[in-house]
């Protein structure tokens, strides 16, 4: 990309920036306000909306109560700190699991789709594009039926472990077609000469892939790793369907808190603290996301 100075200054750039900046700011206001309400309310004694401003007090109480597993300020707690830690750990397990499965599968298959000649290659690549778009919900019934079937022969003490394994692979499967396609785009950009020189020296294909090509597509690997981690971290439907009710993640915990819309049962600022905590990885990756999104969309959709 060229520096801005090469543009001919026949238009008033400053005025354009101001007009567009204000317009987009107005359009963005629902996003800004709604995230502000969530995060700010987690630090106040009541929701910052609805109350009278004078009564708002800054407090860390909601965060303490959230980690203690309490739902209201006064009521006795049903859960303990260990339950909450358990849910957070479960969320991490699913997120890391999805990340590992997706990243390994996509870096392997993306390489083959980009670099190897085999029968049915074009068909496979088109199939992946189709699968990426395929309505996953229309399969979840059958995926669940398969799950029930396949867990029956297992001993009961393995069922929880199997549920985690299944939810990870099933959730990863939704991301795989797109990420293979994205990785293919990154492999396509590596010059063939790099690979030839190594192959001519007698190295095997797998060794070349591992030692020479992979380091060159690190940005692609980082991108799909972050995206698939976030997909697993935020997973709701699959976690809700496959994991037993005792094995909650932050998603199903929050979903359960507000089920039925019951306001009496739970102090809303505590939910805001839970939500803000759940949002931390998103905010941590915030600056990477735009760059990686642009990279993957450029190399991903075409070629």
């Amino acid at each position, binding site marked *: *990309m060229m520096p801005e100075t090469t543009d001919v200054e026949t238009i008033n750039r400053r005025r354009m920036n101001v007009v567009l900046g204000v317009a987009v700011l107005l359009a963005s206001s629902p996003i800004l306000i709604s995230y502000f309400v969530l995060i700010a309310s987690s630090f106040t004694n009541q929701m910052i909306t609805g109350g009278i401003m004078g009564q708002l007090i800054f407090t860390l109480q909601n965060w303490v109560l959230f980690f203690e597993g309490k739902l209201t300020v006064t009521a006795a707690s049903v859960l303990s700190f260990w339950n909450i830690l358990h849910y957070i750990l479960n969320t991490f397990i699913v997120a890391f699991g999805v990340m590992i499965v997706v990243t390994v599968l996509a870096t392997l298959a993306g390489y083959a789709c980009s670099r190897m*000649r085999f029968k049915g290659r074009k068909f496979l690549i088109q199939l992946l594009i189709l699968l990426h778009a395929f309505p996953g919900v229309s399969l979840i019934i059958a995926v669940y039926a398969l799950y029930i079937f396949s867990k029956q022969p297992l001993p009961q003490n393995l069922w929880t472990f199997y549920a985690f394994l299944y939810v990870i692979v099933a959730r990863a*499967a939704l991301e795989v077609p797109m990420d293979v396609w994205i990785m293919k785009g990154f492999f396509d950009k590596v010059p063939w000469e790099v690979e030839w020189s190594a192959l001519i020296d007698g190295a095997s*294909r797998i060794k070349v892939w591992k030692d020479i090509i992979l380091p060159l597509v690190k940005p692609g690997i980082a991108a799909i790793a972050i995206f698939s981690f976030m997909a697993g971290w935020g997973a709701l439907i699959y976690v809700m369907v496959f994991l037993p009710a005792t094995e909650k993640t932050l998603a199903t915990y929050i979903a359960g808190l507000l089920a039925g819309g019951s306001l009496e049962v739970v102090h809303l600022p505590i939910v805001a603290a839970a939500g803000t905590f759940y949002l931390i990885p998103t905010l941590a990756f915030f600056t990477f996301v735009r760059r990686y*999104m642009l990279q993957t969309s450029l190399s991903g959709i075409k070629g």
Partner: protein
Amino acid sequence: MNLKKKLILLFFLGPMLFVVILFYVIPLFLSIYISFTPMTDWNVNRYLTQFIGLANYYRLIHIMMYDPDMRAVIITTVVFTSVTLAINVLGGLLLALATYFMDERLSVPYQGLWLLPRMTPIAVYALLWYYFFHSSGIGLLNTILMRLHLISHPIAWGLDPRYLPWGAWFIIIFINGLVGVSYGMIIFYAAFKSIPKELIVAARVDGASTFRIIRHILLPLTRWHFTFITVWQLFSLLTSFAQTYLLVAWRVVDSTWGQPWALYVFRTAFTTTKDQGLAAAASTFLSAIGIVLGIVALKVLRYKEMILEPKGDI
């Protein structure tokens, strides 16, 4: 191809093929099979061997014709999909144009901000709008309107029968649109950036206005992307239901008028009647639309011609 080559190919493709066959190919056929069984309550052992022909499809067509709730599902699906699709594509285009003509120090944070909903866990994203549209006085929208004295008491935007169906539709369209536009924004923006800058500069030198640059350079050169975004957003709108599911479960949105087809399938199979046979029949419609639309998309977008041959495979 000798054995060693085959083994290497299996090493690279095997794991992916395993997952694709296990979670796409088999479920597709199994799902169609389940639609021919009376499966309920996930009793696979009892029902999976009973074959009842097209009975589920007859039932589905019957309720589509006579059940007003099912008619609400159909109308909601059509309105929700078409309006949100238009918002996603055109909104994404507008955002991409706006950020393209801005300085980078403005466009980078703005694009980041618009990508935030996409990266936010679904439960948190739904929570934002739970607070926003809440039917009591703590709802942000109610708070603002009451402060401005535009309304005197809180309104249940997505539930109050007086505002249905539009109240519920507005909420589900709004929250899905806000996530959806960022996809178009990123794809269009990347496409605009890949247009040689000289073209824009030359047009400026010749005295073309910004509007004419958009009309005659940027839009014609990104027609492929326009089709791509439209098709892909259509797919995701037909199938995304997680946010809507939570807002229905949390009593922010009416369960009849806030329920597109995909959510109906999910709730019928898992939460309400647990009638998997009927849900599978309803999901077969989605699969059929998915397959037909997908094949059309592959043809229209000419993917086959874009797939390069690996030139130097030895």
